[in-house]
C-alpha cells in the first residue's frame, strides 16, 4: 500500500471516530442537563466548562466566544467550522480524506461517509440541530456506526485495515482519557473519587459518553469514581477502554511490520509496548497515587508520540524500510494465543 494512502485511511477513520465520540459526549451531557432545568447560569457554566477543558481546545474556544453557556459550547463542538475539531469539521476532513483515496474504499463505505457529509451540509441538519438535537446527534452516531460496520464487512484484512484500526483505536483511547479527564474539572462538591453522590451523576455521564453504561452495569459494580476509572482504563474486554484500544494498536502495528508481539522493530512498537505493559500490569492504586489527571495527561502525550512514530516510519521515510532493521528480541510474558478482532 502507498504510504500516502496508509496515512489518509488512518486519518479518515480517526476523524469519523472523533465525530462519533463528540456526538455522544454532547448528546449525553445535554440529556443530563435536562434533569436539572433549574440550574442557574453560573452552575450551567460549571457544567460545560469541564467539557471544553477536556477537549484541549479551550484557547480556541475563548478566542471565539465570550461566554461558556450551553449554546456556545454546543455550537463550538458541533457545527462551528472555525473549530477544526467540531463534528462538522471532522466529517468534512474525513470525507476529504476519503475522496483522495476513493479508489481504495468500497462504494458502500464511500456512500455512507459522503451521505453523512451531505447531511451535515444540508438545511435539514441545521433545522434538526435547532429543533431536535438528540435526533441530530443520533443521525451522526448512526452514520458513524454504519461506517464502522461497512468498513468491517467490506475491507480486506490487509494493511488498509491495519492502518484504519490504528486510527480508530488511537482516537478512541485518546477520547476515553479526555472524557475521564472531565472529572478533573468537576465543579466543587462533585470531585471526590470515592464519594457516591452528587458525583454519581457526573460519573454516569462519563460512562455514557464512552458508550460504556451497559457494559459497566453488566459488571454489577456501583458507580463511583474509582470503579468507573478502573473500568475505562483497565478493562481488558470493553472496546473503548484504554487498555483494550492500546492492545488493538499493538496488534495492528505488529501485523503491519510482521514482527511478533512482545518484540519491536521500530519506535512506535516500542512505545506502544511500554504503554500496554503499564496498562496490563498497572493497578488503580498507582493511578490514584500519581493523580488521575497526571496519569491521563501522560497517556495522551504517549499516544501522540506513538502516532508521530507511525507517521515517521511508514509515511515520511519508507525508504528506510528497504534496509530492514534487526528485530530486537524480547521474551514476552503476555502473548495472547489468538489475536482478537473486535
Amino acid at each position: 500500500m502507498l504510504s500516502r494512502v496508509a496515512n489518509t485511511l488512518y486519518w479518515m477513520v480517526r476523524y469519523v471516530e472523533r465525530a462519533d465520540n463528540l456526538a455522544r459526549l454532547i448528546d449525553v451531557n445535554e440529556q443530563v442537563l435536562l434533569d436539572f432545568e433549574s440550574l442557574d447560569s453560573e452552575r450551567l457554566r460549571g457544567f460545560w466548562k469541564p467539557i471544553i477543558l477536556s477537549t484541549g481546545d479551550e484557547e480556541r474556544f475563548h478566542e471565539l466566544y465570550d461566554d461558556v453557556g450551553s449554546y456556545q459550547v454546543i455550537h463550538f463542538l458541533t457545527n462551528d467550522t472555525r473549530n477544526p475539531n467540531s463534528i462538522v469539521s471532522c466529517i468534512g476532513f474525513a470525507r476529504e480524506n476519503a475522496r483522495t483515496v476513493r479508489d481504495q474504499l468500497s462504494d458502500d463505505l464511500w456512500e455512507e461517509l459522503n451521505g453523512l457529509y451531505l447531511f451535515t451540509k444540508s438545511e435539514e441538519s441545521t433545522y434538526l440541530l435547532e429543533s431536535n438535537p438528540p435526533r441530530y446527534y443520533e443521525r451522526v452516531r448512526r452514520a458513524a456506526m454504519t461506517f464502522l460496520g461497512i468498513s468491517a464487512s467490506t475491507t480486506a484484512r490487509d494493511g488498509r485495515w491495519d492502518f484504519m484500526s490504528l486510527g480508530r483505536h488511537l482516537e478512541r483511547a485518546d477520547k476515553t482519557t479526555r472524557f475521564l479527564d472531565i472529572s478533573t474539572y468537576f465543579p466543587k462538591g462533585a470531585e471526590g473519587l470515592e464519594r457516591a453522590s452528587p458525583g454519581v451523576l457526573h460519573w454516569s455521564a462519563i460512562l455514557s459518553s464512552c458508550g460504556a453504561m451497559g457494559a459497566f452495569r453488566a459488571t454489577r459494580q456501583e458507580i463511583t469514581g474509582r470503579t468507573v476509572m478502573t473500568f475505562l482504563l483497565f478493562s481488558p474486554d470493553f472496546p473503548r477502554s484504554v487498555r483494550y484500544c492500546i492492545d488493538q494498536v499493538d496488534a495492528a502495528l505488529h501485523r503491519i511490520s510482521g514482527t511478533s508481539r512482545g518484540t519491536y522493530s521500530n519506535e512506535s512498537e516500542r512505545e506502544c509496548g511500554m504503554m500496554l505493559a503499564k496498562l496490563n500490569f498497572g493497578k488503580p492504586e498507582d493511578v490514584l497515587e500519581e493523580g488521575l489527571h497526571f496519569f491521563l495527561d501522560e497517556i495522551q502525550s504517549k499516544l501522540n508520540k506513538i502516532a508521530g512514530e507511525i507517521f515517521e516510519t511508514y509515511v515520511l521515510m519508507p525508504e528506510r524500510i528497504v534496509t530492514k532493521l534487526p528485530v530486537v528480541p524480547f521474551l514476552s510474558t503476555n502473548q495472547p494465543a489468538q489475536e482478537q478482532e473486535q
Partner: protein
Amino acid sequence: MFEGYIADKFYDEMFSPDGKVREHCEALDRKFQQLGNKEFLSRKATSELYFMRQGITFNVYHDNRGSERIFPFDPVPRVIPAGEWEHLEAGLTQRILALNLFLHDVYHDQNILTDEVIPRHYIENAKHFRKEFRGVDVPKDIYIHICGSDLIRGGDGTYYVLEDNGRCPSGASYLLENRNALKRAFPSLFDSVGVRPVDSYPRDLLNMLHHISPRREGEPVCVLLTPGCYNSAYFEHCYLARKMGIEIVEGRDLVVIDRFVYMRTTKGLVRVDVIYRRIDDDFIDPVVFRKDSVLGVPGLMNAYKAGNVALANAVGTGVADDKVIYYFVPRMIEYYLGQKPILPNVPTYLASEEADFKYIMAHLPELVVKAANESGGYGMLMGPQASSDEIEKFRELIKADPRNYIAQPVVSLSQSPTWCDGAMEGRHLDLRPYIIYGEDVKIVPGGLTRVALTKGSLIVNSSQGGGSKDTWVLK
C-alpha cells in the same frame, strides 16, 4: 413524451424531418411512452441522486468553496445503429493507426516532412513538439494509447472528426457511469432493445498497459498518475484506477533512483513499470519541463528515455493535437496507409496559408476560429454569435500570429431530444469515442455523448454548461 417535439432544421438523432421516429429509435420511443411524464421525472431524480451519492462530480476551478458539481445527465439516450457504428469504428481505427505512424515518423526520420506532405515549419513551430525526444524509442512504437476523438454530425447526418485529443483525453468514467445510472433508474428501457455493453473498457485499458510494459518477466506494476484531488477529473482518475485494480499515485508518491521509478509504500519502495499518466507533458518532470511543477516526478524522463518505464500516452503526442496538424491527418492516412480517409475532417482553413488567410479575413463573421493549442472550448470565436468587437479582436490576433489559428465553417451539430425544464427539446450534441491502442485497437461501443444544455448552443464542454447522455450502440 415527445408530443410537440420539433426536429427543426437540424439533423435529429431520433426523428426524421417529417416528424417520424427513426427506425432504430422506435423501441426506445415506445418504452418512453409507456413510462409517461410523471414516472420519467421520478426516475430522472433517481439517476441524479445516484450521481450525487456516488460522488460522481467534477471540481469547478476558481470557486472558493471548492464546490463539486454533478455533471448534468440527460436520461434520453443517443442511439447509434449497428451499421453506422461499423463505419465509425473503421474510420477511427484507420485514424489512430495513421496518427501513430505519423508520431513515430516525426520523432525519428521525418519522411513525411522530407517528402513535403506536411511543410516542415509547421512541425518545428508546433507548441507541443518535443525536440528532446527525437530519436527516443517508445515501447512497441505506440504513442497514442488512448485517443478521445470528438465526432460531430452535419446537417445531412455525415460524421466528421472535429479533433483527436491524443494527450490525456478524459470522460471515459462518465461513459461507464452514465450507463450504470441509466440501468438503475430506467431498467425497463433496456428490455430486448439489444444494447451493446460498455463495461469492457477498464479491462481493455489494463491489457493495453500490460502490453507496453518494459518488464520482461513477472506481472508488471502499473499505476495511474494523477495531479491530485483538486484536479477537475480526479473522480475519473480514482474511478479508473479502482476498476483496473491499480494504484493511483501522485507525483510525491514516486521517486526515481538510478533511472528506475519506484513508489513509496508501507513496505518500502516498489518498482513501477507502466504509468498511465493523467498529467500533461509540461508538468510531468520538473527537471525537463516546467521547473515550477510540484505535480511531477523529478527524473522521470531519464527513466523513460532509458526504457525502464512506459508512459501512456507517450510524451510529445500533443503535436498531433495541434489544430494546424489536424488539417493534415487525411493526408497522413493516404501517405502512411495508402487509403482514402473513411471519416472526413471538418473543412479547415489555415491562417498561415495565404489563400486561406484571405478567405478567413473576408468571412470572419461566418466562421469558427480556434487557437491551435487550446481545448475545453477556450480560445475560440463563434463568428455568427460574436459581437463585432470580438470579431475585430480575433482579426488582430490572427494577423499577429497566423500560425496559431485555424478557421472552420460552422457545423450545425446534430441534435437529440433532451429534457429541459418540463419538456423535450432539441439540444446539440457531439460524440467522443475512446480508442485504445495496445496489442490491437479496441473501441468501446459508443462513447461519451456530450450535449449543450443551453438552447441553440454548440459548445458541449462541461466547463461551459454541457451535460451528457448514455450512448447506445445496437447489436
